């Protein structure tokens, strides 16, 4: 079991703390490779079955669904580690490996308890990538992130216990929305998957992480959530609509967002929407699409975060309003960024094209026409914020006058490899299709498919050009935009002090009142009971004679009692 992929990562992250500085970065590169070998080596099946506390745990389940996620997680960990070669901060390094391990563990968990543990572990490990920024704002953001992540965890815990209570099983297979327990689990997954209104942690946290941290963060948590949805809730129709909303609304926010890393976070949210739709449709084709999209998405989103991160690394900012014209001195970064942008925009020959198409096809095949149309619109939207905005405002647009040096060598290598993979998958989809959970008979490169996609994208580009020309395209401004997180960042905090103050005042006042009463009572009691008080000193002869009379009377009285 110690040789399983998650544990390899965990062990490596523990080992990091005890080895010299110069060996750490290489170890971080080696670990994902070993883990990948381990995943392949273990082969499909349930491993590490054990019984703790009446729970039958399946620590390591490799099957068609979890395998591709395992593979891409290892690749992502490798690329992120390479990108972070320069980092000397042990906290980040340990967190990176631990986080990747936890995500792998979650994907390979064969039961809900194990999943819960890894689920929490991803939260605990990943938050350090935010804390590592080391500023008070990062502290606050990290705490928000952690609390939401753990909220997801505790909901999962509550849900799994209820599920266990209902069914007596903790096996993690298809769950469906059948009981309160499964609903709670669904919400738990939904939080990590950034469902609408539960999404804010994503946009809040990713821009706050370190340069390299964001790359790591972008890969795992949400995709693990997609995996769990695919495992537990495939074919849940509600997901189709949730996903459709997810694809649409972040686009608007991304469009006007200034911080490019937050733009990418919104974009990530939008891409998750495609995957969620795929899960919701739940057919073999759709699930294949989800997995494939997750796979390719991890790559191009990493690539985009890497390129923006490289810019941040060199210039100290990732705000669109401060950037522009960087193509001159960072051409390689720029090219990689453009490749990433084209991949996410699903240009033919790029990875996004061959994965997103599966989902769109599944939607229309299953007659979700409205949803399908939403996805088409969203595809145009993806082009707007990720395909155009990111590269255009960073590297072109109006010249900011910044002349930073090209990204460091290791970053460039990491970006180039990632860019290569984006293109490779796009050109040779068979490789990716071969590891998808179900048999793939889909042909992405049909003429009509390429044509329609090119029409969509080119006319969208044309619209962009037109809007730029007539000046209707919004300018990049130094602004933040309110999202629903306003509720817990401004709304509740603004009334909380008042509420707290009144509760405290009530408490204080009632306590004071009670104390005063008690004190008065104490004084009264003391007056009676003190050495000179009547209780202590009132027992002279007269009192006694009186008492004698009373007692005599009392005893005689009982003679007259009816029961006599």
């Amino acid at each position, binding site marked *: 079991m110690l040789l399983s992929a998650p544990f390899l990562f965990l062990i490596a992250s523990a080992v990091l703390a005890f080895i010299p500085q110069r060996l750490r*970065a290489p170890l971080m590169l080696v670990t994902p490779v070993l883990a990948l070998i381990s995943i392949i080596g273990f082969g499909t099946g349930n491993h590490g079955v054990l019984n703790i506390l009446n729970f039958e745990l399946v620590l390591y389940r490799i099957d068609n669904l979890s395998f591709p996620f395992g593979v891409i997680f290892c690749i992502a960990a490798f690329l992120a580690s390479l990108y972070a070669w320069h980092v000397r901060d042990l906290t980040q390094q340990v967190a990176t490996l631990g986080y990747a391990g936890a995500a792998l563990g979650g994907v390979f968990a064969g039961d809900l308890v194990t999943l819960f543990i890894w689920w929490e572990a991803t939260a605990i490990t990943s938050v350090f990538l935010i804390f590592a920024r080391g500023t008070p704002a990062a502290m606050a953001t990290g705490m928000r992130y952690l609390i939401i992540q753990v909220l997801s965890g505790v909901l999962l815990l509550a849900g799994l216990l209820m599920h266990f209570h209902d069914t007596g099983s903790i096996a993690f297979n298809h769950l469906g929305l059948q009981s309160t327990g499964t609903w709670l689990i669904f919400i738990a997954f939904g939080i990590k998957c950034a469902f609408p209104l539960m999404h804010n942690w994503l946009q809040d946290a990713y821009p706050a992480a370190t340069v390299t941290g964001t790359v790591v963060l972008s890969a795992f948590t949400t995709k693990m959530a997609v995996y769990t949805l695919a495992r537990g809730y495939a074919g849940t129709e509600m997901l189709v609509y949730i996903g459709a909303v997810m694809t649409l609304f972040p686009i608007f926010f991304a469009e006007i967002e200034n911080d490019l890393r937050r733009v990418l976070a919104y974009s990530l949210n939008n891409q998750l929407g495609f995957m969620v739709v795929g899960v919701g449709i739940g057919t073999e084709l759709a699930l294949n699409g989800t997995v494939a999209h997750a796979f390719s998405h991890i790559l191009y989103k990493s690539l985009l975060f890497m390129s923006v991160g490289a810019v941040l690394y*060199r210039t100290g900012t990732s705000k669109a309003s401060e950037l522009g014209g960087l193509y001159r001195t960072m051409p390689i970064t720029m090219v990689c960024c453009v490749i990433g942008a084209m991949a996410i925009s699903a240009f033919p020959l790029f990875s996004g094209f061959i994965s997103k198409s599966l989902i769109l096809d599944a939607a229309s095949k299953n007659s979700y026409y409205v949803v399908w149309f939403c996805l088409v619109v969203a595809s145009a939207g993806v082009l707007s914020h990720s395909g155009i905005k990111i590269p255009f405002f960073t590297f072109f647009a109006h010249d900011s*006058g910044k*002349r930073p040096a090209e990204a460091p060598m290791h970053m460039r290598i990491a970006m180039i490899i990632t860019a290569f993979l984006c293109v490779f998958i796009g050109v040779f989809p068979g490789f990716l299709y071969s590891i998808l959970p179900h048999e793939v008979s889909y042909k992405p490169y049909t003429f009509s498919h390429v044509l329609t996609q090119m*029409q969509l994208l080119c*006319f969208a580009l*044309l619209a962009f050009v037109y809007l730029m020309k007539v000046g209707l395209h919004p300018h990049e401004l130094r602004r*933040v935009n309110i999202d629903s997180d306003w509720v817990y960042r401004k709304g509740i905090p603004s009334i909380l002090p008042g509420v707290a103050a009144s509760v405290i005042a009530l408490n204080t006042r009632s306590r004071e009142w009670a104390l005063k009463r008690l004190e008065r009572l104490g004084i009264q009691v003391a007056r009676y009971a003190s050495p000179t008080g009547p209780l202590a000193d009132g027992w002279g002869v007269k009192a006694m004679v009186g008492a004698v009379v009373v007692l005599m009377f009392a005893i005689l009285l009982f003679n007259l009692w009816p029961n006599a």
Partner: protein
Amino acid sequence: MKNDSQKQVSDDSLTPLAKRFLWVESADKVRLAIYILAGLCAVLFILDFVVHRHAYAPNENTPGFYALTGFLAFSFIVLGAGLLRKLIAKPEDYYAPNAVDAEDYPEEGLNREEFAPDEIVENKPGSGS
């Protein structure tokens, strides 16, 4: 090049790769690029009438469906976002000090380096923090 305090880098000292993109500085060449794009769009639009597409969704087969959708969706999103901004945009320090928007990225995590034409080859990885 309005920011004169920054170190001036002449276009000649750029890497070959960067030089390939210098055309974006020229208004003519950009206009040319736009024309090319427009032309491409026209061709794609025409192809719709020529080629029979396989379709599932209603109206999907309507000629120009994707073209129109692309153009209108994009415009709608951009314009809609512009309206949205009027509603929800706030100054950068709105959430300060509990949000990173109002603060600079800490310098110790960065490696600011100006472009130096002479040493196109990067200094070794890891020279950062």
